[in-house]
């Protein structure tokens, strides 16, 4: 059933590639998106050189790899997907994002890597119809707080 395993080449063959590697940081959430040629293309993930990964995300590349692997194994254990033939429909793409969780004093608590789907590549009506979002009503919070205070 789970024929899908990450295959990662451990050679550093591609460090000489002249491709552009950039990372952008979302200022609100603190997540890094790595727009990396090596990550995006190819069937293998060659080792980025340490310099690049550290410079871009502040995360050592070995750690990035380790986090991606553990994340992937969780997703596979959850039975998130099965490999299938390429159907003739819209195929959504995905991205890895990275984040370093820090404690209040600035020391590193843990590294995180997360696989996210690119929701905007979904097509309305084909992939989804109505969307749902939890919306907070202001008075709910105030009322609950108020009751909690009044009743200690």
């Amino acid at each position: 059933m789970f024929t899908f395993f990450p295959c990662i080449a451990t050679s550093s063959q591609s460090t000489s590639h002249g491709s552009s590697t950039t990372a952008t940081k979302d200022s609100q959430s603190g997540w890094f998106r790595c727009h990396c040629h090596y990550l995006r293309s190819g069937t293998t993930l060659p080792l980025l050189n340490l310099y690049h990964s550290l410079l871009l995300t502040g995360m050592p590349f070995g750690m990035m790899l380790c986090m991606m692997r553990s994340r992937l194994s969780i997703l596979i254990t959850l039975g998130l997907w099965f490999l299938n033939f390429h159907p003739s429909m819209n195929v959504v793409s995905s991205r890895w994002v990275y984040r370093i969780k820090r404690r209040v004093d600035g020391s590193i608590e843990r590294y995180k890597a997360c696989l996210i789907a690119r929701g905007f590549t979904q097509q309305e009506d084909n992939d989804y119809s109505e969307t749902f979002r939890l919306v907070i009503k202001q008075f709910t919070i105030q009322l609950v707080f108020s009751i909690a205070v009044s009743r200690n």
Partner: protein
Amino acid sequence: MKQPPGFVDSTLPSHVCKLHKSLYVLKQALRAWYTHMSDFLLSIGFLASKVDTFLFILSNGTNIFYLLVCVNDILLTGSNSAMLYRLIQLLSFELKLRDLGAVHYFLGIEVQSTGMGLMLHQHKYILNILTRVGMTSCKPVDTLVSPLKITILPDTSFSDPTRFRQIVGALQYLTFTHLDICFVVNRVCQFMHAPIDSHWATIKHILCYLNGTTSYGFHITRGSSFALHGFTNVDWAGSIDDRKSTGGYLVFFSQTPISWKFGKQRMVARSSTEAEYTALADDTAKVIWLQYFLIDLQVTLV
């Protein structure tokens, strides 16, 4: 979904992943999470509130617990602390969660407990907005600009409307604890489609005001009895652009204001009485809505 970048199966490179569950940022993700969450909560005896989708209530005669779910922030309160602790343990079996103790930061709102009750303020959020605009060192002002002066004027249109809309949107969330800027923000919102330079100046003025009042907040005090009180007021034909009236209401629960709205009325009133009645109708509708909500919360009004 395409195979994850960097982890493409070398033997089957042209295959794709057929998703059986939802993944982050898919349009279905929030719905899937909510269904999962609510199914679990209902299975352990919680009741979903009919009025608000993100409130769950558990009651067993003597004790009552309220649970607010906001995507991945959960706020739990109840009348029995020992049972509350057990409930948290029960939740942590199903959901991977961390108990952060007493509430101090929820959805960008800081909560401080005082001797009299709770103080809600958005100090950090205001500083974030000021940093975004680059106005952290602006000179604080004591008064807000008069909302009546914010009108359609023959002025040059503001060069960056997107920025304008972003800041106004951010200010709108701030009305959660800053009732005083509620009306002026509502007024500025009316020009979102075509902001002009003087509107941007107003925003700056609001920000200067906020810089001086970052610690202002919303004090929830202990009330002696549970009662709802509504107040309304109108300014007939107050808007000089279209002569619509300005109206507002404020609903108190016990001694705490819980619901309010200050802004332009939707219809043109031909007399001040008509404007007053419109505001009264809005207020009454809100009070009735809150009454239903309190029934859900199993609170009896006195």
